[in-house]
């Protein structure tokens, strides 16, 4: 196991104060903090090798291109992928949209008589399948695809416990694509994605997994997901903002029409037509986020040094502890699984009689940073009939004392709203 106290020194922000008290950061599910090593790697690139990647032949341009492609290799290895399967995006949201647009673009082109891979053509009578626990990023792009093509959106519902209700009949012969979150950012549930991807493939559909909340927190090998595509963000795994990854099987990536078009994704350009480079270049139009790719690769190295299995164990321990402590507080209801089976470190809850926003505010007043709201899973909140939740999410730099602070914060909120009016002064 790793030494939390020691590694906290790599995160200067964790020793600051907020609202006059020491910060307790329990919002890594929204975005993680960044270790000095990652910031140094980005800066080192800017100060020594910065140049436009894939756009020049001079010494700096060569160094920059090498550094960028080496980062791609590091990130590929981190998830067991081939280097040419890794497309850099600005965030997970772009990665998911990129795949959704492959469908609408192929459909548009087919309508104009342009030859496209039929697996990406959808229309009335076809369906796309998601779940009721998707982040908006893995829901709205598919709603939009359906609105544009006349396809139908279907979804797996949820059990009371916060697990997927994998009823037969949702995936059927009309299904062209299935996209499912690996670990829910609201419920913490870890889904049996392999099983669902196999169901998709059984009816000839393609499938995608949203890895935003899994890759940062556990060892993930993309080849074991049974999926065709996957997407996640760098900023939730110690990396910089502004970088994400789309993983896709090479034959599929190369069968897709381009998404963003422009420089660096071309083969030949004439005024009236162009041809495109193979993937991943095909999907990386424009000068890329080179420094961020390099920062993210350094984040992968940092996590590898800790060991992803250790990261997972560490968080499992914290989560079990948090669930235990929450269970002791009367009036607290956890939204999502309350046992540790197939569950990650996102713990959402509501407190009877106090709005989640107020709970979060009073925790914040004690320095405890948690997220409040629908967590970009509005339909999931509706499913559990809550307007919002308060959410604790942990990472490598958290320990039990952070959970204790959170628990104390919740109790103080209960006291405050319970006793009510006496507090102001």
């Amino acid at each position: 196991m790793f030494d939390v106290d020691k590694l906290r020194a790599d995160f200067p922000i964790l020793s600051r104060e907020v609202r006059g008290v020491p910060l307790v950061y329990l919002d890594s599910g929204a975005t993680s903090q960044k270790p000095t090593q990652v910031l140094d790697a980005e800066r080192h690139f800017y100060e020594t090798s910065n140049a436009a990647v894939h756009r020049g032949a001079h010494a700096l341009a060569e160094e920059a291109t090498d550094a960028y492609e080496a980062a791609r290799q590091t990130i590929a290895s981190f998830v067991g992928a081939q280097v040419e399967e890794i497309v850099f995006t600005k965030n997970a949201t772009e990665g998911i949209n990129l795949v959704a647009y492959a469908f609408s673009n192929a459909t548009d082109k087919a309508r104009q008589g342009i030859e496209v891979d039929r697996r990406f053509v959808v229309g009335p009578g076809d369906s796309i399948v998601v779940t009721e626990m998707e982040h908006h990023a893995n829901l709205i792009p598919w709603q939009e695809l359906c609105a544009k093509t006349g396809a139908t959106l279907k979804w797996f519902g949820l059990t009371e416990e916060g697990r997927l209700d994998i009823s037969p009949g949702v995936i059927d012969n009309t299904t062209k694509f299935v996209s499912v979150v690996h670990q829910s950012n609201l419920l913490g549930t870890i889904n049996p994605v392999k099983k669902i991807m196999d169901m998709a493939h059984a009816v000839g559909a393609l499938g995608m997994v949203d890895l935003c909340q899994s890759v940062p927190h556990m060892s993930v090998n993309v080849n074991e997901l049974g999926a065709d595509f996957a997407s996640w963000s760098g900023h939730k795994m110690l990396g910089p903002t502004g970088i994400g990854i789309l993983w896709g099987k090479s034959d599929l990536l190369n069968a897709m029409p381009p998404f963003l078009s422009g420089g660096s994704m071309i083969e030949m350009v004439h005024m009236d037509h162009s041809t495109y480079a193979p993937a991943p270049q095909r999907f990386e139009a424009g000068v890329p986020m080179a420094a961020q790719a390099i920062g993210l690769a350094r984040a992968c190295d940092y996590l590898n040094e800790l060991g992803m299995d250790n990261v997972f164990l560490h968080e499992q321990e914290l989560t079990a502890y948090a669930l235990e402590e929450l269970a002791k507080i009367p009036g607290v209801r956890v939204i999502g699984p309350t046992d540790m089976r197939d569950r990650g470190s996102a713990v959402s809850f509501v407190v009877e009689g106090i709005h989640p926003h107020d709970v979060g505010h009073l925790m914040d007043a004690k320095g405890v940073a948690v997220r409040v709201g629908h967590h970009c899973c509005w339909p999931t909140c509706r499913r559990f009939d809550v307007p919002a939740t308060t959410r604790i999410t942990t990472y490598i730099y958290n320990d039990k004392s952070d959970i204790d602070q959170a628990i104390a914060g919740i109790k103080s909120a209960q006291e405050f709203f319970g006793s009510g009016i006496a507090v102001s002064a």
Partner: protein
Amino acid sequence: MSEDLYQEIILDHYKNPRGKKVEIDSLAQSYQVNPTCGDEVTVEVGQNPDGTLLVSYDGQGCSISQASASVMSELINGKTPAEAAPIQEAFMELMKSKGQLEPDEEVLEDAIAFAGVSKYPARIKCALISWMALSDAQIKAQLTATTTTRSG
């Protein structure tokens, strides 16, 4: 702890909301939602025979949004559009002030309790949502101060 945010007045309005779900003869309504937290409010406006405003609201959300709606309904109900306008403006001003403005109790009455909210950017929307719904409903019902002036 958070005294600046959760004033006695706010907690009182939160626990004992005034004017919520009152049946009125409404001319228009406005539904508003805070997309970051899911707070929702619907404000209805009508007009008394003497030309003063009738206000009712419904909604769900945090203490700030609920108390603000209650204070809003108490302050605006029974005022003419022309009387309401400076109050509405003063409240908007206060919310934009980042805690730098000393609110005028003459004008804002109980609403001065929200002065502290303006220091918390993420909560300002909570306090404003019902007031925004009010303005929107007034426009739809043509019960704004300017409309009155023009037609009067």
